[in-house]
């Protein structure tokens, strides 16, 4: 399918899916960028800031796809929507830890590794499916993103396995982080209220199929590092795909749009 051949119902489904894809990457890239200068060592600062930059680029690609099907300018979409119009999963908007990126950041590296690794595994599965999306511009974007995302997945997998098989303290912290992420990670794995239309339009695989792939992969990795699989991840704080969000998203969007919102009409 191309823009011209989309039926109205398919277009609605496509728009919903694109917002999910864009907002997931946008928010997690933002949380990643807050880590700059605060990572465990300088080499990680270099690598992580590169990953965050890539992910911001991926969000940008998706926002541009939205612009191309008439959702308005990409910058407006990214900066001027109200929090309840965002479609990202709640776990991806969550702060990195106590404090802010400007003041007294007591950021949690274990939480960051777990969240990014689990997300990277899902993103990989999602992209793998999107490569065959019926909407050709999306399939093309997915193929492009995949070439970078391969390294992100590798990066976080190394961190995850290293820390899960290291000191007692590291294992303790990582285990606590897994429990924390597990409570809401179900929100990443869902396609939201338009799920049936999205799948019917062959935009992406059935969410149950992708969920199963994710669970199988994570179960195997947990087993490999000697940890137990806690059962299906949950969605305790609600479904971000429905526009349900936390205070953390309000803080995030206020920061992201602080300058742009002062005058969206001018060039910056």
């Amino acid at each position: 399918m191309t823009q011209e051949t989309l039926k109205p119902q398919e277009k609605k489904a496509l728009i919903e899916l694109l917002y999910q894809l864009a907002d997931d990457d946008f928010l997690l890239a933002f949380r990643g960028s807050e880590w700059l200068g605060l990572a465990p060592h300088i080499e990680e600062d270099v690598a992580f800031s590169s990953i965050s930059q890539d992910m911001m680029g991926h969000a940008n690609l998706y926002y541009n796809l939205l612009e191309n099907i008439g959702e308005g300018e990409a910058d407006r979409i990214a900066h001027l929507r109200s929090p309840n119009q965002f479609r990202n999963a709640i776990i991806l908007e969550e702060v990195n830890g106590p404090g802010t990126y400007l003041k007294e950041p007591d950021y949690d590296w274990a939480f960051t590794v777990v969240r990014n690794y689990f997300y990277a595994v899902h993103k990989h599965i999602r992209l793998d499916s999107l490569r065959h999306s019926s909407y050709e511009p999306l399939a093309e974007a997915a193929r492009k993103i995949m070439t970078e995302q391969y390294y992100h997945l590798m990066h976080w997998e190394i961190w995850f396995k290293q820390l899960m098989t290291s000191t007692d303290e590291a294992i303790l912290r990582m285990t606590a982080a897994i429990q924390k992420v597990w409570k809401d990670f179900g929100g990443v794995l869902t396609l939201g209220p338009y799920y049936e239309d999205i799948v019917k339009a062959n935009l992406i695989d059935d969410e149950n199929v992708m969920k199963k792939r994710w669970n199988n992969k994570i179960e195997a990795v947990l087993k490999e590092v000697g940890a137990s699989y806690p059962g299906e991840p949950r969605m305790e704080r609600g479904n971000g795909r429905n526009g349900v969000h936390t205070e953390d998203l309000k803080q995030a969007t206020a920061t992201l749009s602080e300058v742009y919102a002062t005058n969206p009409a001018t060039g910056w």
Partner: protein
Amino acid sequence: MTVGMSFNQLSEEEKMTHFLDRINAGEKIEPDDWMPEDYRLQLIRLISMHGISEIMGALPEKEWVPKAPSLHRKLAIMAKVQDEMGHGQLLLRVAEDLMAPLGKNRHDIMEDLFSGKLKFHNVFHMDAPTWGDAGIIAWLVDGAAIISQSMMLDSSYGPYARALKRICAEEVFHAQHGESIILAMAEGTPEQREMLQDSLNRWWESLIMFFGPKSAKETGNSNADKNIMYKIRTKTNEDLRQEFFTKYIPRIWSLGLTIPDDTIRFDEDSQMWIYKDADWSKFKQIVSGNGPQSQNRLDLRRRSYKNNEWVRTALAAKKAI
């Protein structure tokens, strides 16, 4: 040198003569070559300060990364701070090789930073309260950095010269990114122009300070002179500052901005820019860790270093799986 006689049998004086002959002939000194202790110490001082300045220098711009006012600007500034971190890493690796024979490593560099023993560049101690500052930093601070680093591209120390080659290439992109932000604001609304002028006013004295005082008289420090002797650098602080003026003052004026120094002018007779000098006692205060943001930014690094201690311990103790 007598045939068959090893270099180690030479007296210290002969080694020194041989060393100076080499650098005067334009040869590069490599990490494992003999070098006078003083040369090693000068390099460690210069390169660790440069490396740590790149790392601390990412912090003021980082404040503007999420707030950058478009997706395009967000991507560009993310790429820039990532580059700066990469420069820091590259330079610290060079410094670490030089420090190894003294039994020192990365940990010592970080501890020296935290204790205030290792200083970082004056500009990175300053406030960056608006988006205009992000533009001025990228355009003029990076522009100044290109001028001072280009001078050392032919440094007598091989690893430093090679690192700088890569760094300068990237800095050119940074300055272009900065110039693009500046142009957008200069051509924008009255509020944008005002914000820009305000940033320039705020940064001007720091930019004068960037190149260091005119001579040893102002600080009682002769590191620059020594580094010229060792061919680590080739120009004086004032040479560099004049080059900066020649390159940037006409550009600043052409944008319709005002330089906050009404005495500034080009003197045809001396072929030099006449300007109001910086307050060098203030400079000393700033680089000693008493600038407006010195302790806040140091605290960010101290705090994260401490918070992540468990990670470094875990990596060191990693078991194979």
